[in-house]
């Protein structure tokens, strides 16, 4: 298989790239810093003797068509596309600076949507079989923390559901995961014992590749939290701050 991972130099994206390389797949890694990308690519090439290339791109400055062309230039055909890059912001309980707000929306929403849109022809002609997006449990129920981030992730889910509807007659799989807290540098020290290792999430995503489409929780137990949050009366819910 040939796979592209966007946001592959750290955290979940790096874990996914590692598991994909281990399984012998040919890879293109995308993130902003060529040095991190080259270090990850080196490691994977040496350990798993598979072809790993990389591209520098900044999702805050979207150029989805350009990115698609560059990925296809490296890989030829793409079988699986993982849109993993995401961005949180410490001031996202408002008011935020407009530039910061726009970045959060661009990286978490506009860019992944634009990239999926750019690859729509590939999904339709059967060459791209798997599109995987990464959402967040921050999109479960709107709260005073991660306001813009949560909205962007919710918007991304909506688009993925729309895409799934649009492509229901095609053989491709559209999957999106509401991922829980992970032990990465995105949430330093905040996840506590609830934080899962990015590697365990990566393994779960790959085990479900080609499985049911749509939105699912990882780790699975977050679904229970979502149900409980969903039925929590507003008067109680407004106390869940901080």
């Amino acid at each position: 298989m040939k796979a592209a991972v966007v946001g592959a130099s750290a955290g979940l994206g790096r874990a996914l790239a590692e598991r994909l390389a281990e399984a012998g797949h040919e890879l293109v890694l995308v993130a902003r810093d060529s040095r991190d990308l080259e270090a990850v690519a080196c490691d994977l090439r040496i350990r798993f003797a598979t072809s790993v290339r990389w591209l520098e791109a900044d999702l805050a400055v979207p150029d989805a068509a350009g990115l698609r062309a560059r990925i296809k230039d490296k890989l030829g055909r793409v079988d699986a596309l993982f849109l993993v890059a995401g961005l949180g912001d410490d001031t996202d309980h408002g008011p935020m600076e407009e530039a910061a707000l726009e970045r959060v929306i661009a990286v978490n929403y506009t860019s992944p949507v634009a990239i999926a849109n750019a690859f729509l022809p590939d999904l339709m002609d059967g060459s791209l079989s798997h599109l995987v997006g990464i959402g967040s449990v921050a999109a479960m129920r709107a709260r005073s923390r991660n306001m813009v981030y949560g909205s962007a992730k919710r918007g991304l889910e909506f688009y993925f559901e729309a895409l799934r509807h649009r492509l229901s007659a095609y053989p491709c799989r559209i999957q999106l995961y509401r991922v829980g807290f992970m032990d990465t540098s995105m949430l330093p020290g905040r996840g506590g014992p609830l934080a899962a290792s990015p590697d365990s999430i990566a393994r779960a995503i790959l085990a479900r590749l080609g499985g049911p489409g749509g939105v699912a929780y990882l780790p699975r137990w977050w679904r229970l939290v979502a149900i409980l949050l969903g039925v929590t009366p507003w008067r109680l819910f407004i106390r869940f701050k901080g």
Partner: protein
Amino acid sequence: MSAPVARTFHSLGFGESARGRWLVPDRLRFLDALPGVPGIPRGAGLSLAGAGFGEDVLALDMRRFDRILAFDPGAGTITVEAGITLGKLFRFLAPRGWQIAAQPGHPDITVGGCIAGNVHGKNPLAHGCFGRWVLELDLIHPDHGRLVLSADERADLLELTIGGFGLTGVIATATILLQPMPGGRMRVEPVPVASLEAAVETLIDRQGDADQLYSWHDMATSGRRGPGLVFHGRPLNGPRSALPLASYPALNPELWALPVGVMNRPGIAVVNLAQSLRWRRPRELGAAEAAFPFARLPYYFYLYGRKGFLEHQTLVPWAAAPAYLTSLRRLFDRHGVTPGLFVMKPFGGSPGLLRFEGEGLSVALEAAGGEQARTLFTELDALDADHGGRANLIKDARLPARAVAAQYPGLDEFRRRLAAFDPRRRMRSSLSRRLEL
């Protein structure tokens, strides 16, 4: 990029603790502009001294920089980022017929920790310490930027950094000379010995052809003669089978220590009995099990409880060893302390600065933490000095500066060279403050 988190750090065994900040960077741009505040690089935090943290110090956890950057099977060298663990390296190297020569006993230990602590493996006599195998380093310092260190370039700084306890800056990458892996399995013969002295003789006799050679003693018996076993390991010839390092439970004494320790004399007797039953006859160990005996036994450390344990390792000249062991026995009796672990090894390598290296016998012991143990260890410091011994700095959480001054002729030179390289002393740790480095 992530923000630092405030937390309390403990050395393994709870011998030294401090409140500091913790940062786990994972992108190289972070290393371009290291914060100038007092900081200290850190690996897995498995040191028995407070070497990777300090009061109000920013601890830079390097474990996400763990990539293999180059591997040359022709020359037998590998270039890695310093946060890589010995376990990850083992999984890569073993199937390819290579190994790290001087490998300490837990797979979570990082290469950075091995270099900064200049650690030793199962056979320091034959293989020296970790530093001997380091060909080149990339060192990053907030005031000096990125520096390449090798025998040809800044050799003096390389010397200071090997066994430099992270005080010269962050080791970003290292090129290491590898050792061919002789075979997949190792045959370990337990040779029963009646006393510490008998073990010393056996260790000397068998020095010639051992890949692993160390002794283990039961000091809970009355009279404390120290009956025990000399472990003599030799690689088995035969096909070099790739033996994987199976997954192992995490070692996290901070999380799992029993509320009350059970490593008192009866408890130790039970642990020792289990050990001697396990070793009634020679055993064949897989390469992973031979390399990382502690990987499957983290529970052992939890037995000491929240009060933890103190460790002490001394390198005594061979000639002084018998007298040293006799006095040691008397010390245990006088203070009513029974060491939970007592291990001896023939040692080698070349001493210098603050390195725990050189010809002689290494005597390592572990005792349940508390007042008694601390008093005993204070007397141990004097005993070491009297016998020309030197204590291992990375393994003793309470070793005072004056003990090091009495034992290490290189102390002043270490201080002078460190101050010359880094007059603002950007790197600090509990260890560096305790030893006034």
